[in-house]
Structures are given as structure tokens and as C-alpha cells.
């Protein structure tokens, strides 16, 4: 059987070794030289390239003991041809905040994966996990035990809290308005139980970005997007602005004219900002990081409800809390999260994301249920249709109803 894939060769995939961009085929091939799972993956993938369809069968529930997530079960539809990928389950390993590693820690993971898996990984999955790509059922438990002994744990899959992730934040970015790494770590620890054991109607994703540049694309991909912002005035170093101008930045055209709030003016000497109009887009700060910085009163905006298109069309998160201080122990945030999860748990249908539930019951109802005041920051514009579910009314005296 092993011969099967050896004989076949991979003429189509070989084409993808050409070209300058590093080749995933080469990555698999190199592993295939010593790892039979990688070899059969290569063979099956070549077959997909010939047939133009996947050769993985539908799903399959597997996992480690006591956990309901973290492993994606996967079975080949051609186990006869490719016995070493008959099972080929993925393990999602919860990455450290900000994807920071030491070589030592990474090597430990590699060693475990060399012994028990395909030797192939995704660094990282698009949720943020370190993805160990392909092993068989009986290896799951040993891998898990070895990983936990080195300090690693599984990430999420299924109807759980998915592995939270964050931008590099204060670790290496001057724009961070709160500590994204600390918050991510804190929430991940706090909610270990719901991360590992399905207790939700569907998946829930947290993503933390330190500023409105949103370098983890939280607004597009997280049920709750926590995006750093500031409240007070942008900090301006006028001398540094002039320096940029001297070095060729056309402050009027490249900065003022592109400000979406049109709240800046430049007289060739001073850059004036009408901060009460600024809508925190970051553009001016991005363009002149030496001269401008976010204000000093910092925190985060909390947006809710992003998800992929199935079933209602994709959604971005929308503003729920325009500004919240973001400091340990994050009590205000956690109270909010708990309230939302309670509501979701009670009213959410099976496989209904929070963003869909909010649409179904109405944002107004949702806010009332979680006891949040409606604010104009929540909307791009107030409603245009007159179909208002008025709840207050005057009682008619002595009128029969």
C-alpha cells in the first residue's frame, strides 16, 4: 500500500515547487521523506489535483478525554491507497498571546509532533491556534499529555469559546491603547471550561486589537471585537510634524485632506486638530508616528457580532460599548460577557451566532436584556423605517379592551 503513493509520483504538485514564493509542497515533500503520514498526504493531495475534488470524508468526532474540542477529526475517502492518512486529525494548540515564542518552547512542540504526528503544521490557523496537521486517533491522548506537561493546552473547536487571539500590542507597538496580550491571556484562563467543553449554542470568538488599525481583523472575525481607542486629545509634537513636512510629507494633502472627520488644519507651522470631531481613524497617527500619538485616556471600544456568511451573509462586529477602561481584573468586561452568554444560552438557537441572534431579536431588545444603554455611537444611522415596536403606551380609562 505504501508503494501506491510512492509509485504514483506527484507531477502536478511538482509544478508548485517552481517559483520564488516558498512552497508548501516542498514542506510536505521534505517531511514525506521521513514521515509516512506526510508521504500519504502528498499522494492524496496529488490525487485531488488530478480529480479536482477533496479526498477527505465528512467530519468525525474525535478528541481527548474530558474535552469537547481542540481536535478536528478527519478521515481519508481512499484509505486503501493512503493508509497512513486513513485518520488524519488536526490538533489545535492554543498559541501564546501575540504569537511570541522562544526557540526552546517551539522545539519541544516539534519533538512531540515528530514522534506522534505528520510533522506538518500550520503556523498558524486563521483563528490563531498553532495547528498540528494530521495524526491518528490513538496518538491524541499521548500528544495531549506530553503537550500539557510542557505547558501547552488545546485550543477550541465546535460550539465552544474559540482560542482568543490578539495583535502584538504593547509588546512592540506604540499605538496600543490597552494591553492586548494580558487581556487575551486573562480571558483565555478565565474561560478554560467553556473553551474546552461545548456549552454554547455555537462558536464564540474574541479578538483583541490594540487600536483602530485592528491588526487581528477583529471587526471581521470575532463575535466580540475589543479594539483599543482613546478618549482625550491626540498627542502632538509640533516640531516632529514640521520635521515630517521638511522631509517631504505634504501635510495638507496627505494628512488633513484624508482625515475622514475633516477636523485637522495645517498652516505650515502647526497642525491643529479639533479633537472633539476626531473619529479615531488612526490615519494621521499612522502616517506620522513620530509626531502624533493616541491620547492618554485609553481603553477600548467593544464591538459585537462578526461572522462568516453562512447563513445570513457575512457580518462585521458593531459597536456595543463605545468606551470601556480595560484594566485587570477586567470585571466590567467579564460581567458584560457573562450577561451576553446567559442571554445567548437562553435564546440562541442551535448554531446561531450572537450576531445572528441580535438581528433576530433586535438590537434594542438585546441591549435591554443585557442592561446596556442605547447610544448613538452604536449606529451608522438611526432607523429609516417606521416600524417601531413601541412598548410604552397610555392606559385608556374605563375602556374595555
Amino acid at each position: 500500500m505504501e508503494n501506491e503513493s510512492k509509485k504514483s509520483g506527484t507531477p502536478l504538485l511538482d509544478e508548485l515547487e517552481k517559483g520564488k514564493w516558498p512552497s508548501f509542497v516542498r514542506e510536505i515533500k521534505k517531511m514525506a521523506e521521513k514521515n509516512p503520514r506526510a508521504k500519504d498526504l502528498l499522494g492524496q493531495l496529488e490525487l485531488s489535483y488530478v480529480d479536482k475534488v477533496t479526498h477527505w470524508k465528512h467530519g468525525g468526532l474525535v478528541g481527548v478525554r474530558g474535552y469537547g474540542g481542540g481536535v478536528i477529526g478527519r478521515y481519508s475517502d481512499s484509505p486503501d491507497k493512503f493508509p497512513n492518512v486513513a485518520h488524519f486529525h488536526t490538533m489545535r494548540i492554543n498559541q501564546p498571546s501575540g504569537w511570541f515564542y522562544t526557540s526552546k518552547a517551539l522545539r519541544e512542540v516539534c519533538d512531540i509532533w515528530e514522534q506522534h504526528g505528520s510533522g506538518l503544521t500550520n503556523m498558524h490557523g486563521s483563528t490563531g491556534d498553532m495547528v498540528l496537521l494530521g495524526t491518528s486517533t490513538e496518538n491524541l491522548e499521548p500528544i495531549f499529555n506530553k503537550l500539557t506537561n510542557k505547558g501547552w493546552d488545546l485550543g477550541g473547536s465546535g460550539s465552544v469559546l474559540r482560542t482568543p487571539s490578539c495583535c502584538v500590542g504593547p509588546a512592540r507597538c506604540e499605538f496600543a491603547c490597552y494591553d492586548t496580550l494580558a487581556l487575551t491571556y486573562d480571558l483565555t484562563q478565565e474561560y478554560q471550561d467553556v473553551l474546552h467543553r461545548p456549552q454554547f449554542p455555537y462558536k464564540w470568538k474574541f479578538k483583541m486589537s490594540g487600536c483602530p488599525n485592528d491588526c487581528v481583523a477583529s471587526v471581521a472575525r470575532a463575535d466580540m471585537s475589543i479594539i483599543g481607542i482613546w478618549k482625550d486629545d491626540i498627542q502632538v509634537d509640533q516640531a516632529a510634524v514640521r520635521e515630517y513636512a521638511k522631509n517631504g510629507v505634504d501635510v495638507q494633502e496627505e494628512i488633513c485632506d484624508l482625515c475622514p472627520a475633516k477636523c485637522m488644519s495645517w498652516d505650515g507651522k502647526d497642525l491643529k486638530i479639533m479633537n472633539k470631531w476626531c473619529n479615531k481613524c488612526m490615519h494621521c497617527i499612522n502616517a506620522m508616528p513620530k509626531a502624533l500619538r493616541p491620547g492618554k485616556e485609553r481603553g477600548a471600544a467593544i464591538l459585537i457580532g462578526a461572522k462568516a456568511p453562512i447563513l445570513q451573509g457575512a457580518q462585521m462586529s458593531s459597536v456595543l460599548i463605545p468606551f470601556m477602561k480595560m484594566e485587570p481584573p477586567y470585571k466590567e468586561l467579564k460581567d458584560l460577557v457573562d450577561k451576553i452568554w446567559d442571554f445567548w444560552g437562553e435564546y440562541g438557537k442551535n448554531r446561531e451566532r450572537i450576531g445572528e441572534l441580535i438581528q433576530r431579536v433586535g438590537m434594542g431588545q438585546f441591549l435591554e436584556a443585557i442592561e446596556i444603554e442605547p447610544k448613538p455611537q452604536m449606529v451608522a444611522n438611526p432607523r429609516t423605517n417606521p416600524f417601531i415596536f413601541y412598548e410604552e403606551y397610555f392606559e385608556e380609562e374605563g375602556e374595555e379592551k
Partner: protein
Amino acid sequence: MESVQAEKRKTDIGPPKYEQFLHPVIKKNYGTWKYHEIVKPGVLVHVSETGDKIYTVRMGSPRLINIDTIRMLCDLADKYCDGYLRFTSRHNVEFLLKDQSKIDPLIKEIEANGYPVGGTGKSITNIVHTQGWVHCHTPATDASGIVKAVMDELYDQFTNMKLPAKLRISLACCLNMCGAVHCSDIAILGVHRRPPKILPNLAKLCEVPTTVAACPTGAIAPAVVDGVQTVEVNEEKCMFCGNCYTMCPAMPLANALNDGVSIWVGGKVSNARHAPMFSKLAIPYIPNNPPRWPEVVSAVKNIVEVYAKDAKKYERLGEWIERIGWPRFFDMTGIEFTKYHIDDYRFAATTFNTSTHFTL
């Protein structure tokens, strides 16, 4: 036995705390960074209030990497970065150096190993993508293969910074959109174009009511065929979303002749200047043509080139289109506008042009 194991078995420990993985310069200057500069493509310097500096060298990665490659990265980190490195939200690798003089030797070694340095500033960085035929059960196309072919073609856009603004490409291999491509400057999305087949053993594998309920357009109805419980699909109502297959393995959509790729443009995520935007349909369908999907590659390249030539500084692809208008976008790119471009889903009416603001 159970209890013995239970003692040894750790659970719910969560990930290692990030602090232990921070380079000492980063640890010391955590939260006190003052500004940054892009030294050259792929190289950043962040300067702290304390005067300390940390240099970053960003290396392009195919994301699907093997453990030997990871060990190679570790070796480089040991040699140049005191053993510290990180990955980015778009799956690139970042080496963190305190010593400026080590930058060029590091880059040389990275390149010698066959990996590029770049992806910073006004460039095209790594393509966020998904599993495709490598690991998933529902793809309408492969992921890594197209990414490789496209990045080969756009390689120079990764290694230099000559675009009007950042340009982010993403790929998802089915409508589940794990790549969250819906807010990308350019999105490549695998699409099915034939309704699901109904396997004979359906009722054994799936609950019929759940399967029926899974369809957003109500195309699935319970049926009895030859005395056996099953479902039937109203082909007119099917828009090939694949949700039925997600719920029921007996309804596969994969179809070698008709699966393929669609191209979407003009999305963005950041709040810089313009609020975040969804990507919009540019090309409804390109057939799967492995191993190198030449039609997809040239379609993407064409869009990038037209944009690069016409957009103003700082203008993301979507901002550019908003300025020039969709008629000129289709005109300038030579892409055909079809009825598929006109939304007919839930919010369709909100996408119609209710003005005379257009060019002819």
C-alpha cells in the same frame, strides 16, 4: 488506574504565559514604545521612550511548514535573536533583534533558505488562507496551491513597498470562509455551482428535519423515494452554500467540473481613513485549473496592476474604487459586469444605485 492517571493528567492549563516568550528588550520596554520606522522592506525598528530599540525582520512563510523548517527558524532565532521570535496575524515570521548589525546577515540567511523578507508598509503581505484539499472536507478549491501560484506572481510586491497602500489578499476554499475573506482588498473564494447530490443512505446518516432546516433558502424538502425516507432539493432555489453538507454528510456538493473560484475586491478591516468595508464581487467564476490556476493568477494580477497605476497614495483598493466608481472599475480592469454582480440576497435593495451619481 483512572485516579492515578487523573493525577498526572493536566487539563485546562491554558496556553503558556506570553511573558516568558518576550525578548528582554521587549519585556523591559513593554508598553513604552514611542514610534517606529520602516528601515527597509521587511525591516522595522521600534524605538522606546527609554531610547531602547528593537528591530524586526519579517519573513514570508507558506504557513504550512514542517517541523524541520520550524527548527530552522529556531536556529536563526538562536543565532540572531537571543532565541526569540514571533509569528504575525497573517502568518509571517518575525525575528526580533536588538542588534542592528545582525539584520543583514539574518536576511541573507533567510533568503539562502528560500524564504523572502518583506510584507511591511505599502506592500502585499502574506495571503491569509485555509485548508483546501490538504485537510478539509468541504472545499470547492485548493487553498495552498492558489496561494503559492499567486504569490509567485506577486513576489515583488511582497519584497518592495511600491503600492499606493497596503493590499491584503485572502483566500477561503468554501463559503464557510474560514479565511474571513469578506473584508479583504482582494479575496479569492472557492465556490460550488451545482446543488448537492443526495446519497441513497441519507436517512441513516442524517436527521431529515435538521437537514431540511439547514437550508437558508428553503430548497430542501423531506421526500420518500422508493419507500425510503430522504430529502429532495429544489435546484432553482439552491445557491450552493454548502450548509446542507455541513449538517449532513449524505449531501456532498463537490463537483470537479463545476467547482471553482470567485474574486472579490475592495474590502478592508482597519479604520484608517475609511470605515471597514466588505469585499464586493468582481469575478463570479473561474474554473479550477490546478496545479497553478493561471486564470486566477492573472485575474488577481490585473486588478493589482490597474489599482497600483491609478490609485492615490494611501488609497486602499476599496477607497480607490469608491472614488472612481464601479463603472470605471469594470471598465479599467476589463472585467465583465453580469447579473450575478447584482445582489439578490437579503440586503439586495441596500446595494442598488438610487441616484444619478455614476459615470457613463
